[in-house]
């Protein structure tokens, strides 16, 4: 393959050839080749279902390939368990921190590879190794004895990375590491990664944030439908080209929404605050308008959504719906006011996994299922479900199928449908296309625009920069719980990122970030 000659190195740290993997009758990986050079950051991208996670699991030993070879430093190896791959120096940091909430940070770092002396754990030896380790990943030393369950998600991820570092990894796999980090934390992460690669460690970096890759990766492999399509040095491709390779087509150019006229103010927040999460938020959303709040995890954006919906309480400030001040105490009250919300994390907050699509759609409006309150008819449920399956182009043979059998994009459409069963006045969408492939993403954006066109007030809270630019009429940037900037009309990614980082847009931001879809090559 031409990919090998492009990379021009002799011995790869890790090389997989002709990998095939099936589950039951389904080919998860049709054919995969990947070769990782020592001391480089190798990005792995692809839509959901393309086979990235399966490939990673094979490298990590969590799954065994049906065919193909794996070689480390030129030597053929067989990996049949996680201990095998750990012994070869592979460490994986998953998106969900795979930690033990009841054990301390120190124990979590050493679990599975405890240092033992004559049968007992050598606590002193482990303590010595801990020293300096937490510092390297940006955590205070004192956290060594903290129980992991009491730490924040971002801190837990840092512990996962510390754990990987402590095992002298030669191949470090990072699965969507930046999804839950704030910008300063991402900087720390990149510094750590650069330190590692300088010392010869290879990093496999999986991310949906294509713009990020240009800041950190040396090479990129694109997967689609179970195949590795191509591997190139990062400089040879643009974001648009990578996206097109992932999808197998050419992305449409135009924005899906015309900036139309908007109507009366539906939502108004004045000095809205929740102590410790966000403060002095002032924003309005009008009927027919899409307001985007851009903020990374920890910025307070998702907390604002939660308070609007009544899952949490505001500690000061006012919220008004259609001009009337309200205090929303619980979601059922929010819904009565016409506020609907799509939660950020589908699997834990929205999906009823083995229940039917039908139930997943109607569960928010059970009152519509029967003439007499309290009664529910399957016929009505089916009718409502089938209607939405058609309207939102949900790919399924029937509404009886469990939502767990669907792809991310289709499942997200189901959960979105739930919010639309009774037309909302204000629709709040938190991370509406997280974990959704490019094709479905576009369809969902079109649906959202359509809703706004029909008069719904829409508030989108997202950490996806491309998304917030594409879909919003106005963009508010949240940083550290406060509105850092507001953009109406044109805005560039650079300006938004700068506002989110709190930096001067003309200084410090490295020029090689974020080539937008409009430019061809990164500088």
């Amino acid at each position, binding site marked *: 393959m031409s990919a090998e000659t492009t990379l021009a190195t002799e011995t790869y740290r890790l090389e997989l050839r002709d990998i095939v993997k099936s589950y039951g009758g389904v080919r998860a990986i049709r054919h995969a080749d990947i070769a990782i050079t020592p001391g480089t950051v190798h990005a792995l991208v692809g839509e959901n279902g393309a086979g990235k996670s399966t490939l990673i699991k094979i490298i990590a030993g969590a799954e065994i390939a049906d065919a193909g070879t794996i070689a480390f430093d030129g030597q053929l190896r067989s990996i049949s368990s*996680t201990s095998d791959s750990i012994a070869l120096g592979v460490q994986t940091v998953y998106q969900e921190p795979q930690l033990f909430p009841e054990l*301390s940070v120190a124990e979590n770092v050493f*679990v599975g590879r405890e240092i033992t002396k004559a049968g007992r754990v050598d606590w002193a030896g482990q*303590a010595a190794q801990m020293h300096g380790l937490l510092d390297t990943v940006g955590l205070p030393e004192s956290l060594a004895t903290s129980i992991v369950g*009491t730490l924040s998600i971002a801190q837990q991820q840092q512990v996962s990375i510390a754990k990987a570092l402590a095992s002298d990894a030669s191949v470090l796999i990072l699965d969507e590491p930046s999804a839950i980090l704030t910008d300063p934390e991402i900087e720390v992460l990149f510094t750590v990664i650069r330190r590692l690669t300088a010392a010869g460690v290879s990093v496999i970096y999986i991310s949906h944030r294509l713009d990020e890759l240009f800041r950190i990766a040396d090479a990129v492999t694109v997967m689609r439908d179970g195949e590795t399509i191509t591997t190139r040095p990062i400089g040879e491709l643009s974001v648009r080209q990578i996206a097109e390779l992932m999808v197998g087509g050419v992305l449409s150019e135009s924005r899906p929404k015309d900036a139309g006229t908007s109507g009366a103010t539906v939502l108004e927040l004045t000095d809205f605050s929740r102590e410790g999460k966000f403060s002095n938020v002032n924003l309005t959303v009008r009927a027919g308008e899409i307001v985007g709040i851009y903020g990374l995890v920890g910025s307070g954006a998702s907390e604002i959504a939660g308070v609007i919906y009544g899952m949490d309480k505001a500690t000061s400030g006012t919220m008004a719906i259609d001009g009337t001040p309200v205090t929303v105490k619980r979601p059922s009250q929010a819904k009565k006011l016409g506020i609907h919300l799509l939660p950020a994390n589908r699997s834990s907050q929205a999906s009823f996994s083995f229940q039917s699509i039908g139930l997943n759609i109607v569960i928010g409006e059970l009152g519509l299922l029967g003439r007499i309150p309290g009664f529910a008819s399957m016929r009505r449920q089916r009718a409502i479900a089938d209607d939405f399956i058609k309207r939102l182009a949900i790919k399924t043979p029937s509404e009886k199928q469990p939502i767990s059998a669907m792809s991310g994009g289709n499942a997200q459409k189901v959960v979105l449908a739930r919010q639309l069963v009774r037309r909302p006045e204000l629709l709040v969408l938190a991370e509406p296309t997280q974990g959704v492939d490019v094709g479905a993403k576009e369809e969902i954006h079109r649906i959202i625009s359509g809703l706004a066109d029909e008069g719904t007030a829409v508030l989108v809270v997202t950490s996806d920069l491309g998304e917030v630019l594409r879909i919003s009429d106005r963009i508010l940037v949240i940083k550290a719980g406060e509105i850092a900037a507001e953009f109406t009309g044109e805005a560039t990614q650079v300006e938004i990122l700068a506002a989110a980082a709190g930096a001067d847009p003309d200084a410090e931001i490295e020029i090689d970030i974020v080539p937008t879809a409009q430019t061809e090559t990164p500088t």
Partner: protein
Amino acid sequence: MSIDERTKAAPPAKATARRILPSPVTGQEFVLIGVIAVLWVLLGIFTPAFLTPNSIQPLLVSIAPIALIGVGMTFVIITAGIDVSVGGAIMLCAVVVAKTMVSADVPLFVALAIAIGLGLLLGLINGALIAYGRVHAIIITFGTANIFQFVALRVFASSTVNGIPGTLDVFGRGEAGRTFGVPHSFAITVVVVIAAWWYLRHTAGGRHLFAIGGNANAARLAGIKVQPRVMVAYGLTGALVGLAACFIIASGTSTLDQAVGSGKELQVIAAVVIGGTSILGGRGSVIGTLLGAILVQTVTSGVTQLGWPSQLANLFVGIFIIIAVGTDLLRERARRKS
């Protein structure tokens, strides 16, 4: 790249070692010691007979089997499992040993070997089904409980086993069962508890049990051999059931009847949860289990001694379960907030 290049000179290792050692107790132990102390004082005041050797010794003998099996049950519950088949297993081990002793006058260590060996086998059956069968522990052990009971009843063949010799008296209530006033069965139990405490705190294998209960998937990904560890927990429980069966035979009469073991699984689980082990796994204490068993038996014995209807004991057990688990929940919530 070695980690030394990334660290500065290490501070005195001992000080830090003490800091990263897992806590020796969960905190529930102190609450229990307090409650038990109060109960004993009150009982001592209202029934002076309570604090005499005549009353304390049988109490300790009755605590021993529950606490002993409780150690195994604690291991199992720490892995987020459970074993409701111990009652049936007690019955089976007891009847097999009793019949063997009646039909062939075997020496003590043979009886023990049979009991422990059989118990271990039963425990490993449970362990294998749970570790490799992808089934929930509560369901499968409901099933094996029935099967063990069935086999036990077949071995019984009649309603009782009579004429059991005194081979096991060294674990019994009589003079032969004591040294310096302490019943042997209780002493052995305490030794087992201490050994288990050490194992859970200071060995990788012990810490792995907590990991498995905390996040089984992460444990697997971290390279922990989950299935063998789970089998160890259930196997250990079974072996302890065998030993406890010998204690139970010894502390009874020369007649063994079919009610042996009945309901014991719930008593053991009660002792474990009162002791501060979380039913959800990942957290627990064998010392707490011992204290829990002491509390439950104290209540049972105390009720009788006070002349109250003996069924009231169960009411108090229920109340204590609520109080104990309630304080444990409150403590957990407070810890999460900090």
